Every structure is written in C-alpha cells, then in structure tokens.
C-alpha cells in the first residue's frame, strides 16, 4: 500500500465510524485489508481501493471500515465485571424497577461474545424477580451476521468461556460450536454506528461499551460517550473499558470501568 492509500483508508475510517487509524502502521493496514481484497476478488489492496474510488459503492466502503474496526473477541472479558453485574447491579435494579423489565444494551457487541456471556450468565443464575431484556448492537454487518448465527470455532469457544458453560449452552456441528437457540433468542440485535444520534434508541438501565472508545478519535469519542451516557437511564449503570475516566454525573462502582449514573446529579444536569 502506498502512503496515499493508507491515508485514504484512515480518512474513510474517521469519516464513517470515528475510528482513529494510524496511517503510518503499514503492516496493520495491510494485514486487515489483504484478506478483504482476496475475499472480494481483487488482486491487491491497491486494486480494492481503486475500485472503491471508481465505483463509490457503499457496501465496499463499509467493508473496508469494518475490516479496520475488528476487535479481539473473548467470552467473559474481565470476569469481575460480570460478577458485579450479576451479584449487585442487576439485583439492585430489579428491586428499584419492581417487576418492570431491566433493559441492558451491549453497544459494539462484535461477534456476540460479550452479550452472550451475559445471556448465559442470566440463564444459569436468573436474577430473582427480574425480567432482563438484552439488546446488542454492532457497526459491522459481517460481525452482526456471525453473532446472530451463534456459530463459533473451537479456537473461539476456548477464549474466556469456561468448559461447563460450553457444554451447557453449545452444540457441536461438524467442527464448529453453535450457541443454543434459547440463548440466542434472549438477545435482540441491530446495526448501530456509535457516532450517529443514539437518542432514538431510548433508555437502558445498563449500557456496556468496551474496546471501541479507545480506538476512536477524541472528537468521535466524546460524541459516542455523550450518546452512551444519554442512553443510560437515571440510576442506571455504564460499563466502559477498565482505563476509562469516570464520566461526569457518574460514580465508580469498585470494579474498573463500571460506573453508576447518579440520579440526582443527572436530574440537575
């Protein structure tokens, strides 16, 4: 890839998804885009990008952005976060909501490992008196498709997923592992770009968004964070990456990256 091509890709990623892509990282760009070029039938990344400029096909543009937005996906990332949600956050919300559904949104849910970890956890240990509704969103169409299929490789189901959860919730089909329909049906999926207006999505009691904000440009990050905090209901909980600062109007809950929306502070704001 030429420096010009790399700069073009970086520009696309920022425009479309607010992603900060370092155009100097030639190896990273090549390693993400070469498989895409092959899959789409191009001889090289250069040819792919030329076609993209010539044809202005939206689908091709997004496939490039999506390839650069790929993230490492594991089940039960940071187990203490899940334990906190199960043992404290959700039971507390269940008491406050008094039988009303608790809405949980996994934003940037990738190929599903995070939201399905939550779903399996809730199936294994239901929160007394609570009805939890799980929503998940993702930018990349291919990831959305994979997530909804619930199909994972042997390598993927060994990353973070305890063997007992594997045998309880998966079936083996040929050499792949399929998540049970019961767990898949607990989650409602849609495509969401976090730099778009998120207010149309409504309010959620728990909003989980990890591994995306640090990869964004500062502008996009504050825009996405504003959208996420706006979508977090008063008295709700926001789960970000472990290194994230406490957003205004929130207080830390004792596990890195997990914050409670302070009802009073938000009402006053």
């Amino acid at each position: 890839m030429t420096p010009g091509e790399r700069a073009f890709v970086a520009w696309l990623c920022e425009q479309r998804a607010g992603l900060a892509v370092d155009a100097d990282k030639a190896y990273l760009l090549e390693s993400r885009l070469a498989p895409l070029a092959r899959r789409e039938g191009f001889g090289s990344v250069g040819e792919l990008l030329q076609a993209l400029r010539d044809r202005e096909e939206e689908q091709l543009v997004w496939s490039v952005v999506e390839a650069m937005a790929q993230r490492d996906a594991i089940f039960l990332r940071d187990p203490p976060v899940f334990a906190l949600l199960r043992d404290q956050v959700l039971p507390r919300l269940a008491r406050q909501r008094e039988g009303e559904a608790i809405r949980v949104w996994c934003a940037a849910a990738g190929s599903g490992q995070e939201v399905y970890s939550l779903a399996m956890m809730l199936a294994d240990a239901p929160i007394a008196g609570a009805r939890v509704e799980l929503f998940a969103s993702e930018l990349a169409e291919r990831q959305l498709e994979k997530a909804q299929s619930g199909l994972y490789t042997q390598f993927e189901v060994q990353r973070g997923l305890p063997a007992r959860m594997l045998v309880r919730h998966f079936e083996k089909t040929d050499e792949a592992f399929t998540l049970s329909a019961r767990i898949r049906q607990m989650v409602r999926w849609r495509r969401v770009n976090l730099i778009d207006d998120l207010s149309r999505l409504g309010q959620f009691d728990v909003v989980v968004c990890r591994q995306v904000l640090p990869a964004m440009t500062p502008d996009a990050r504050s825009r996405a964070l504003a959208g996420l905090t706006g979508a977090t209901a008063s008295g709700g909980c926001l789960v970000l990456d472990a290194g994230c600062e406490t957003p205004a109007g929130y207080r830390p809950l004792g596990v890195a990256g997990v914050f409670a929306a302070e009802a009073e502070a938000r009402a006053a704001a």
Partner: protein
Amino acid sequence: MKTCLVVDDSRVIRKVARRILEELGFEVAEASDGAEALAWCRVVMPEAVLVDWQMPVMGGLDFLRRLRLEPGGQTPKVVFCSVENDLDRIREALDGGADEYIMKPFDGEIMAYKLAAAGVAA
C-alpha cells in the same frame, strides 16, 4: 512458586505445555502417563495438573478418579487437555471431577484462560 504437573505421552506436547506454563510463572514437572503422574503426586502434591485423556498404562480419567482418593488429592486443580472435542465426552470429564477442559490444539492465551477458569493462578 506453584507447580503444574504436565501428564501427556507426547514429548512434543509436554515441551510446548512446559514452555507456556513457565511463561505463565509455573514450575513444571512432567509425567508420561497416569500411573507415573500418580506416583509423582504421592510424593509432592502439585497445585495444578494438566492431563491428557488417552494415554498408555493409565488414562486421564482413571488418573483423576484415583488422584481424588489420595490424601490431599482433592486440592490440585485438574485441567484435561485432549484432542477429544465431543461435548458428551467433555461433559464426562467434567462430571468425573475435572476442573477445566482444553481441546487441542491450544495456545498460551487459551491455557491462561483455562487455568484462571479452574481457579489457579501462578
């Protein structure tokens, strides 16, 4: 330093596992079948055991049942590590008392996740 006993009839697998476990901060001991492993455990009970299923002399499941009957044999975390990837068979190993299960092939990350899930950190 915690000790992990690696039980596998393949010298290559033992070598790969040793390298990964040492990087994770374990002291590593090796045995090439269940009987040898059991003899080892009778002398020094390790904190963790990584054990293959199919081995000559004594297989993984046999070893596990006998280990749990030994004095102090309840304490080691036992992680199966086998090419067997049939879920019914994995269930059998877990029901037999295995703490975790690794399907071969594995890498360092998978090993780290599985040991953490088994509740043993170096």
